[in-house]
Structures are given as C-alpha cells and as structure tokens.
C-alpha cells in the first residue's frame, strides 16, 4: 500500500463488494437493465461512467465550499450534464465512430443515480483526491455488475460474446445448437436483467457474512 493509505484503498475496494452501488445501495439499476443485453455495450457504459464519475467527483469536491446548499442538486446536474456534453462534442470532432456508439449512453449517464448519489454523499464533504478515488471505486463496482450481467445475458440470450458466436451458429445448427440447444430470447429483455441482478444480490448476501441480517 505504498501509493494509497489503508483508508484511501478502502474507498476503491469497498464499492466492489461490501458496498456495491448496484447490489447493496440499489443505485444505477435503470441503466443496468437497459444496456446489458450485450457485453460490449456494458463495457462501453462502464468506461463512460468511470470517466464521468471520476472527473465529476473531483469538480464537485473542488467546488464544495462555494456551492449554495439550496441549489446544490441543480449545480450537480449542471456539472455532470456539461461534462457529458463536452465529452460528446469532442468525440464527435475527433473520434466520430466512437461517438456514434456512445451517443445512446449520453442520456443514461446524465441520469445515472450513482453519479448524483456519489456527488451528494461523498464529494460534497471530502477533498478532491479522496473524491476521485471514491468515484473510481464506485464506477468499478458498477462496472463489475454491469459486465457480469452483460456476459450472461449475451451468452444465454444470443449465444455470442462481444459479437463472436461462441456457442455455434443458431441458423446453421452448428456447435451446441446441433444437439438441440436454443437461445433464450427472454434473456434479451429487461426483466431478465432484473432477475440476473437479483441472483447476484442473493449470492452475494448469502456468502458475505458482513451483509447477513438476522
């Protein structure tokens, strides 16, 4: 732990398991349901949130002593919206292809509860470096769940991973499909994302002693 003190390291590791934003705080569920039908979309969304939450937390933390408490939510919204729009514009100018993939996520990032939640709960009361770590930690915690859900939904729903047909071709009946396996189309729909998240929560709660309630 040369780089980070024990307390700081906890900011990164806590949200990965014991205080995961999705499974424990139940924030950011909306986007976890919406975009996890494909692994690639989950990864892109995770990276976007990682960036916005890391930078946004620092900006809010730097402004924390001058933000009037009456309008702090609006200020937080403006910061995240401005950040996302600037990133979107810059990508459109310099990495047009990438921006087309991301454009769907822009709206989802602005309204992501985790971002507002971390601004409000952490960045307003802590210094920039700790806020940055907290942002990264929470974004990673979000990413872990998103990628897990995306992995199972794409694998069981479309029989592919990142677009590659890992289980064979469903129309040509090769690979697993030759012995009668069928894709579960239900996995592609949002309700199954909720069920997958539910299963993750169940597994996590039954294995992690700290989370077991009497």
């Amino acid at each position, binding site marked *: 732990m040369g780089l980070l003190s024990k307390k700081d390291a906890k900011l990164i590791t806590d949200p990965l398991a014991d205080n995961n934003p999705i499974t424990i705080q139940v924030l950011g569920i909306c986007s976890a349901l919406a975009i996890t039908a494909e692994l690639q979309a989950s990864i892109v969304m995770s990276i976007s949130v990682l960036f916005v939450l890391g930078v946004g937390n620092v900006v809010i933390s730097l402004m924390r002593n001058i933000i*009037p408490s009456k*309008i702090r939510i609006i200020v937080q919204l403006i910061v995240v919206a*401005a950040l996302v729009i600037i990133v979107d514009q810059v990508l459109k100018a*310099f990495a047009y292809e990438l921006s087309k993939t991301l454009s*769907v996520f822009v709206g989802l990032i602005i309204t992501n509860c985790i971002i507002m939640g971390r601004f409000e709960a952490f960045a307003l009361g802590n210094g920039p470096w700790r806020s940055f770590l907290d942002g990264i930690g929470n974004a990673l915690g979000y990413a872990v769940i998103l990628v897990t859900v995306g992995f199972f939904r794409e694998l069981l729903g479309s029989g592919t991973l990142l677009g590659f047909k890992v289980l064979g071709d469903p129309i040509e009946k090769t690979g697993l499909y030759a012995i009668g396996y069928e894709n579960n189309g239900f996995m592609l729909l949002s309700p199954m994302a909720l069920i997958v998240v539910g299963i993750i929560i169940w597994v996590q709660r039954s294995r992690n002693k700290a989370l077991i309630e009497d």
Partner: protein
Amino acid sequence: MSNKTDSNSYTVLFAIGMVLVVGALLAFTASSLRPMISANQKIEKQQNILYAMGINENEGSSFAFVSKDKVEGEFGKYIKKQLVIENNVPAEDDKAYLIDIKKQQTLAKDGKVRKLPLFVGEKDGKTFYIAPIRGKGLWDAIWGYVAMDKNMVVQGVFFDHKGETPGLGANIKQRYFMDDFTGEDLMSNGQFKGIAVSKSNNDPKNEDKTDNEVDAIAGATITGDGVAAMIKSELKLYVPYFKTLK
C-alpha cells in the same frame, strides 16, 4: 461558511455565474468544433450511400465502411449522378446528398413540395438507385439508405439510429439484419408493397426473396416496425420516378 453560502443573494449570484460560465464553455466548445463535426457528418453520409450500393470494406461477416481518407474519391468515382426530384421532375444537383430529409418531411407535412434526393451509382456495369429514408424507432429517429435496381429490387441497405436500445433495436445496423434485405423485391404484382419486418415468417434463412418480408430481431418489435414503415412511406414516393425508367 454556511452563513455566507446560505443567503439568498449569494444563491442567486452563484446561479447566474454558473449559468454564464457553463453556457460560455458549452457555446465555445460547440462553435469551435462545429467545422470538424460537420465535415465528419458529410463523410458519414457518403460512406452510408456507398455502403448501401455495396462499396465497403466488409470482410467475411465483419462490417466496415470505405475508409475516411478514401471516401471522397470513391464517392466521385461510383456515384454518377445526384438527382433531386421535385413534383416528379428530376434535376441534377451535386449537393443532393446534403439535403436534410427531416426538414423535407416537415415541409411535406405543411403541404409544401418536398425535395426527394436520389443517387445514381454504377458498379461493374450495374446501375444502382439509392434513396435515403427516415422514420421513427422506439426511442428516437432511425434512418438509412436503400440501393435498388430499376425494377425496385433491393440491392443493399444501410440503417442507422439515434438511440435505439443497445443489443435489441440497435441491431438494425448489424450485418445479419441489413444483409437480409438484399435481393428483396419492393414490388408485388406490379404494385408497390414495401418490405415488412416480420416476426412470424417461416423463412429465417431468408430464401424467399419475393415475399416482401424479412425476419425480425427478437425483442425489437417497435424498431423493426419503424424500419418497415419508413421503407414503405418513403420509397413509395419514388415509384413515379422508377416508372419513367421503364
């Protein structure tokens, strides 16, 4: 600290200051990047049109446009004529690909005459007629380009969307969906019929090219219906022009 930042006058001043700073920042970013963004959009339109007529860098089942630096040259080489059809009268216009379809649709809604762009391309001695289409998906706009021969048999399509659900409706721009359209006849017994995106056709391998149907994407009913609707309503407008070609 709280005394100072809690006062009403501070709050109002802060709000005004914040709006000015953020507004200026956004305006500056937007206007300084605009030329590059619109250049990118121009290239994208040319890539889309060329893609529909089969000029792309697809390999196997991969998907790739003509590369950015080559597109200008390829567009000039393969697109022989750009037409604008107004009141069924075609006229040449080499800026036709920049026509904003959304604006033209609004014009038509207000009862005014609508400009219909059509691009005539030639490859390996075959002539392609490429028309832009635009419609509504589940969340936002969807659009595309359809390349046809002179009998209105589809030779290739390109679809795109603004904000359809990733993994579901967004898959209209996947090869497996777009490729199904190639060879489909837009006409049926001499009448314009369009191509339906069907959940119930018994032709998942898409071997029947005269059924005016392609296989739908599971979980993307509304986007699929949007594709069928825009093909039907937009390409119908070109039927009078195609009649003159015979």
